[in-house]
């Protein structure tokens, strides 16, 4: 914290020191449960080679769609790969796509939001129009179009989802900038001759950080969902790489849907659990970081 003195005023109405934040966060039971599950999932993703019982890419042509057994806890898929091992490896894809996409959205949203909020005028107007344009397209259709055009490589999936997800963070940062500009510490920084970059970086952004952290968390949840939808439709992560979404792709086949639920239901639950936990985390962070916020999903 470089601007401890700046925060003096806020400290009284809402304590933002890390211990107070942590205390408030722990009171949010579901959020705490969410973070425990997420940490477990991250450990599973990191140590996937040690946890997975089999090679997730090994094709056993003679044993397609085999039922669960002690060797293959969730059976074998369409071309005889171990479903359980793929499920474990897929956590790497979902989590990394979620985090990196949200990171891309964060960078674009903060940079453009700062420019629009700080300078206002024509820059603000043009960026606002661009944001309107982005929002007027059904994200999933345009994302499919772009990913297909650029190639369905995992990096493209991450970047495209990220690039199309900046509008929320942009609007948030822009709004925060506009309201923070009305405050005295901004005026004092400017009159002391600080450069626009320095004012934004040292004075405006640190004050907007709570709201941005919450928005990025929720963005991560959305990005995981988008990746799974794309991969389910066959326009995202491509086999042999396993993603929870592309594991569900097989269930579009009526016979697999009916006869092999253990093949498609676990990845579905995995997506739901992960996204739910990230959303709980976001909700808990909102309550903990920004107790005065009225915008929260939880209003107590």
């Amino acid at each position, binding site marked *: 914290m470089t601007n401890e003195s700046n925060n003096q005023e806020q400290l009284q109405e809402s304590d933002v020191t890390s211990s107070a934040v942590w205390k408030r966060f722990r009171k949010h039971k579901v959020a705490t449960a969410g973070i425990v599950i997420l940490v477990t999932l991250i450990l599973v993703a990191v140590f996937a080679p040690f946890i997975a019982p089999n090679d997730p890419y090994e094709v056993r042509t003679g044993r397609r769609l085999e039922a669960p057994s002690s060797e293959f806890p969730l059976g074998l898929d369409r071309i005889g790969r171990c479903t359980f091992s793929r499920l474990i490896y897929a956590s790497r894809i979902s989590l990394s796509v979620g985090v990196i996409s949200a990171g891309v959205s964060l960078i674009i949203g903060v940079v453009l939001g700062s420019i629009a909020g700080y300078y206002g005028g024509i820059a603000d107007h043009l960026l606002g*129009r*661009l944001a*309107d*344009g982005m*929002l*007027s*397209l*059904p*994200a*999933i*259709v*345009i994302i*499919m*179009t*772009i990913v*297909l*055009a*650029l*190639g369905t490589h995992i990096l493209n999936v991450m970047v495209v989802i990220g690039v199309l997800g900046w509008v929320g963070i942009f609007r948030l940062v822009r709004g925060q900038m506009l309201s923070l500009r009305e405050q005295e510490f901004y005026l004092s920084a400017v009159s002391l001759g600080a450069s626009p970059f320095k004012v934004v970086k040292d004075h405006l952004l640190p004050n907007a950080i709570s709201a941005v952290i919450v928005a990025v968390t929720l963005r991560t*949840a959305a990005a995981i*969902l988008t990746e*799974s*939808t794309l991969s*389910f*439709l066959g*326009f995202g992560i491509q086999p042999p790489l396993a993603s929870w*979404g592309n594991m*569900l792709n097989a*269930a*579009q086949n*009526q016979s697999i*849907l*009916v006869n092999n*639920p253990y093949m*498609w*239901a676990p990845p*579905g639950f995995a*997506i*739901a659990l992960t*996204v*739910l936990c990230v*959303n*709980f985390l976001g*909700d808990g962070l909102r309550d903990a970081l920004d107790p005065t916020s009225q915008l929260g*999903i*939880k*209003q*107590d």
Partner: protein
Amino acid sequence: MQVYIAKRLLSMLPVLLLVATFVFFIVQLMPGSVIEYMFGGVAGEEGGLPPIGAEHIREELGLDLPMHVQYWNWLRRAARLDFGDSMLTREPVIQRIIDRFPRTLLLMGTALVLSIIVAIPIGVISALKQYSVLDHVVTGTSFLAISIPSFFVGLGAVYIFSSLLRWTPVGGMAPVGTTSPPLLVRMHYMILPVLVVSLRQAASFARYLRSGMLEVISKQYVSTARSKGLSEYVVVLKHALPNALIPLITIIGIRLPVIFGGSVVIERIFSWPGIGSLTLNALQQRDLTMVVGINMFFALFVLFANLLADISYALVDPRIRYG
């Protein structure tokens, strides 16, 4: 009001031009082509290229012209709402969209109406009875609704209700071979996809209405209405609810692209022959004019819907005046 509408219509033009230009050039990067698709084989995959006739088709489709000429020709037609012809079927793109869109509108529109009808009483009651069991159930459901992917809900519903219980057809709009089935048969085919879409929407709409109601109920005019001795029923329905509906209209307006984008997933799962299926097919077949046309159509539709939402505020809330 007329001036406001005219201004809004004018401000759509740069947005549409931006969308058109971007989509037109990005689709050109797609690997594979519609011609490869026509000659068998999956577009985008390597395989035997058609030797005879391919050049002829390229010329016919105008694909041999320089890119900027193609763009200019397309833009001139698009200005008259003519998005060219499908590269595959040679029908006008707009005609295929007009054929397909009413079906999507039927599905998503019914789901939207149903979700609003369900959300209003639930949202109002959970606001009036804050922290009751119902309130907690609504909060929990809305978290689930935003976290479970719609395709998983859809597949689960087909698995349970169509495959195991055999209550509903597995997919499609009507039995194979029938053109105009009776209303009840239509409803039988619609019920599962409509429920899947609307349950998720209803949960989040109810949340927004709950917040709106909580905010409105603490306002002075509600206290005034109560102190006049009006019944709780009149206070809630006549004084509080209309004001609490405004943020909900905003949310529905903002969500329209998401709602109609969702048709891609729902129509795939339920084999519903609407615009979502059209989109997926066009992408798979590399029918570029179709892809661009669909994107343009969605953009137009959403911009107009947002305009309608803004106009409808003025109808719900007489304090809002547009100059």
